[in-house]
C-alpha cells in the first residue's frame, strides 16, 4: 500500500514537473503522452522518472507522464481502456493479447533483446534449495500472475520437476519482482521466481534484498518485456515515442538514462522474438487469449 501510494505520488509529481517543462516547447493545451510502467523495471525512483519524462518530452514536444501500477493487470486494464497511450509490459501478457497490441520498442540488455528468469533462494542455509526439485513442501514466491519470468517460467519448471502447486507448502504473489527478492530475503518464502534483469539491477544498486538472496537457477533467454501500445491507437506521438526510445543511446543524456535503467538501448520491434514465450505459455495451458 505504502509503495503504491509512493509510486502514485511520484507519478503525479512527474506530471507536474513535465507539464511545466513542456510549456517551453508546446502550447499548454497539448495532451500528455501517458506511459504505463510495471514491475518489469525498478519504477519507484522518482528522480529518475522525472529525468526520463523530461528527456522524452523534450524530444516529443509534449509532456510525458509515467503511470506506475503494482500489477500487470492494472496497467493492461488502463491500456485497454485507453487511459494509457503506451505501456511497458511483460512478454507473457503481450503474447496473451498480441492481437490487440502493437510493439513500440524492445529494450536491449547488454546489447541483446533478451533476459532470463531466476529462481532465487536464501544463501548459506543448511536447508537451502538447489533447484526446482527441492521446492516440495517449501514456500515459493511469484511476482505476478501475468509475469513470464515471475510465474510462467516457474509453472513450466515445476511441471518439468513433477511438482504441482499442491506439493508446495504455500505459494503467493508478491506483486512485483523486487518484492519477491524481499520475501525470500526476509524468510517469508524459501524461494522466489524473479526477473533476472531486475535482480541484477538490484544487486548493481546494492539493494539489501538482492544481497541477502542468491540465484539458484537461471532460465533460457526470453524476449525482454516490450514497450507496447494498443493496436489502433492513432495518437501521432506514439511513433515518435518509439523512435525516441530507440534513439536514446545516441546522446549523452539518453545514455545516462539507459545506464540508470541498466539497459544498453531500445531495439526495433520484432514480434518473432516472443514466440518462445508463446510456446511456453501454450505448454502449461496458460495461453488464454
Amino acid at each position, binding site marked *: 500500500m505504502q509503495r503504491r501510494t509512493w509510486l502514485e505520488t511520484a507519478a503525479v509529481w512527474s506530471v507536474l514537473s513535465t507539464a511545466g517543462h513542456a510549456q517551453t516547447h508546446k502550447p499548454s493545451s497539448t495532451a500528455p503522452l501517458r506511459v504505463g510502467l510495471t514491475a518489469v523495471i525498478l519504477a519507484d525512483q522518482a528522480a529518475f522518472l522525472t529525468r526520463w519524462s523530461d528527456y522524452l518530452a523534450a524530444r516529443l514536444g509534449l509532456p510525458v507522464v509515467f503511470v506506475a501500477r503494482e500489477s500487470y493487470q492494472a496497467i493492461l486494464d488502463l491500456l485497454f481502456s485507453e487511459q494509457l497511450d503506451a505501456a511497458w509490459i511483460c512478454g507473457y501478457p503481450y503474447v496473451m493479447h498480441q492481437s490487440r497490441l502493437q510493439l513500440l520498442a524492445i529494450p536491449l540488455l547488454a546489447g541483446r533483446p533478451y533476459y532470463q528468469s531466476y529462481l532465487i533462494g536464501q544463501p548459506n542455509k543448511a536447508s537451502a534449495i538447489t533447484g526446482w526439485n527441492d521446492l516440495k513442501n517449501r*514456500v515459493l514466491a511469484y511476482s505476478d500472475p501475468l509475469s513470464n519470468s515471475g510465474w510462467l517460467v516457474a509453472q513450466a519448471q515445476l511441471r518439468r520437476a513433477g511438482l504441482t502447486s499442491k506439493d508446495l*507448502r*504455500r505459494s503467493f*504473489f508478491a*506483486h512485483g519482482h523486487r518484492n519477491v527478492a524481499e*520475501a525470500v530475503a*526476509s*524468510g517469508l518464502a524459501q524461494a522466489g521466481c524473479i526477473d533476472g534483469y531486475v535482480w541484477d539491477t538490484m544487486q548493481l544498486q546494492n539493494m539489501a534484498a538482492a544481497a541477502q538472496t542468491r540465484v539458484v537457477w537461471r532460465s533460457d533467454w526470453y524476449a525482454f518485456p516490450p514497450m507496447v501500445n494498443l493496436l489502433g491507437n492513432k495518437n501521432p506521438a506514439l511513433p515518435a515515442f518509439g523512435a525516441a526510445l530507440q534513439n536514446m543511446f545516441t546522446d549523452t543524456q539518453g545514455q545516462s538514462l539507459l545506464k540508470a535503467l541498466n539497459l544498453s538501448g531500445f531495439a526495433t520491434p520484432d514480434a518473432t522474438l516472443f514466440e518462445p514465450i508463446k510456446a511456453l505459455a501454450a505448454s502449461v495451458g496458460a495461453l488464454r487469449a
Partner: protein
Amino acid sequence: MLPRFPYRVQIPLGLALAVTLSVLLVSIVAARISARNAQLEIVNRVQSIVELLAAQGKPLLAQDDTWRAYTLLRNASALLPQTAKGQSRAALLDAQGRFLAASDPRRLPTGEQALGVLINGRLLPAVSDATRTKTLTTPDGGMALIEPIRSDDAQVIGFVFAEVDAAAFDPDWAALSTPAVIGAALAILLLVPLGWLLGRRMARPIAQTAKCIAQIGHTDPEQLQLLLPYVKDPELERIAGAVRQLLIETSARQANAQRALSAERLAAVGRITAAVAHEINNPLAGLITATRTLRLHGDQPEARNRSLGLIERGLQQVRTITTALLPQAKVEDRCMTPADLDDMLTLARATAAQQLVIITSEVDVQAELCVPSTVFRQVMLNLLLNAIRAAGQDGQVHARLFVTPDKVSFILANTGKHFSDERLQKRLMTNDGNDPHGFGLWICHEFAVRYGGGFTADQAADIPPPFTTRLNFWLPNLARHDPQKSAAD
C-alpha cells in the same frame, strides 16, 4: 571521613551525596512503578495492535494474500515493544491455524501449523479452542494473544497471533536512569557551589567562636567577648552563649584570683612579719631577763660582764636577723662557740622556770667548731622553747651539742609530747609555713635544707631515761674545710 572536612566542603559533599542517594532511591522506586505500568501498557498496546491487525488483515485473509499480510504485519509490528530486538512479533493465521504471514517469518515460518502445536516453547490452543480471544502467559513473564478474525457472517476465517517475550517487559534502565542522572548532575552542579557558600557562611561564626575559645587564657576575656559572633541560629547561639558565659566566669575567676593573690601577698607579708617578730622576740625575752639580772646583780663584776656579754650577743643576733631581711645585704656571721649554747640555755630557762621544767645539757666537742652562729642560735632557742612547751608542767628537757669534724649537731629530748620521725616529716611537708603553730619547726627545717644539714626525729638511745625520742638538727661543720673563713650567710 566526611566529618574531617571543613563545613564548606562537608555541606556541598553532603548535599551531593543526599541528591545522589535521593536520585538512586527515586530511580529504584520509579523503575518498579515503571515496570508495573510498562507491563500494563504493553498488554494494552498489544491488544490494540491485535485489534488493528484483525481489522486490516480480514480482507487479506479473504484474498489469501501473503505478501500484503506480511507488509501489514511488518509495519504494524513496529508498534509492538522491542520488535527491533526481536522480543515481539505478530502473525496472521489462516482458518486452519497455519501462518499466512508473520512479521518475523524466520521464527514464525509461512505455511507452518501454529494452533495446537508448540510455538517458541508455548503450546497454542487448537483451532476449535481459539474461537475467543485468548491471552497466554509464561512463567518467565512473556505473553501471547490470539484473536479470531470472523467474516461478516461470523465464520472464523483466520486469527491474529501476537507474541511478546518476557525481556520486552524489563524496565529500560538506561532510559529511566538517564534523566535521573542528568537531573542529579544539574542539581549537584547547582548545589556544590551553593553548599560551599552556605558552608562558608555557616562555618564563619563557628570558626570565630572556635578562635575565641582557642584564645581563652591568652587574651583578656572581656576583649574575647567582643569577638564572639552574634548569630540567629539557635544552636550556634547556644554555643556562643555558652562561650560568652564561660568568658564572663573566667573574667570573674581571674578577678577573684587577683584578689586572692593580693590577700595572699598580704598574708605572706603578715607571716614574714610574724616570723621576724618571732625570731626577734625570742632573743628579746632573754635580753629583758639579762637587763633584770644586770639591774639586780650589776654591782658584781662577773654577773655584770656576763649579762653585758649576753646582751651584746643577743643584740648581735637581732642585728643579724634584721640584716638578713635585706636582699641586697651580704651578712657576715661568726662561727658558733659552745658559749652560744649557754646563752640559749640562759634565755630559755626563764620560760622553763615558769612551767617548772628542768633543763639539762651536755657539750661534746670532738673537733673544731664552725657553723653560722646566728642560725644555730636561733634553731637552738626555737627548739628549746618548743621542747619546754611540749614537756609541759614539771617536765624535763635535755639539750646536747655534739661536734664532729663533719657536722655540728644540736640534739634535744623532752618528756611529754614528742614527735616520731614520720610525724615530724609529715608535719614539715604539709606545713609550708602558713601554720603559725609549726612555724619554728618549719624554720629549722628550712635552715637545714638551705645549709645542707638535716632535721630528723629518732630514738633517744644515747640519752638516759625518761627520754624516749629526740630531735636532731645538724649542719655541716665548716671548720674542716676552711677554718679561717667566717660562717658567711
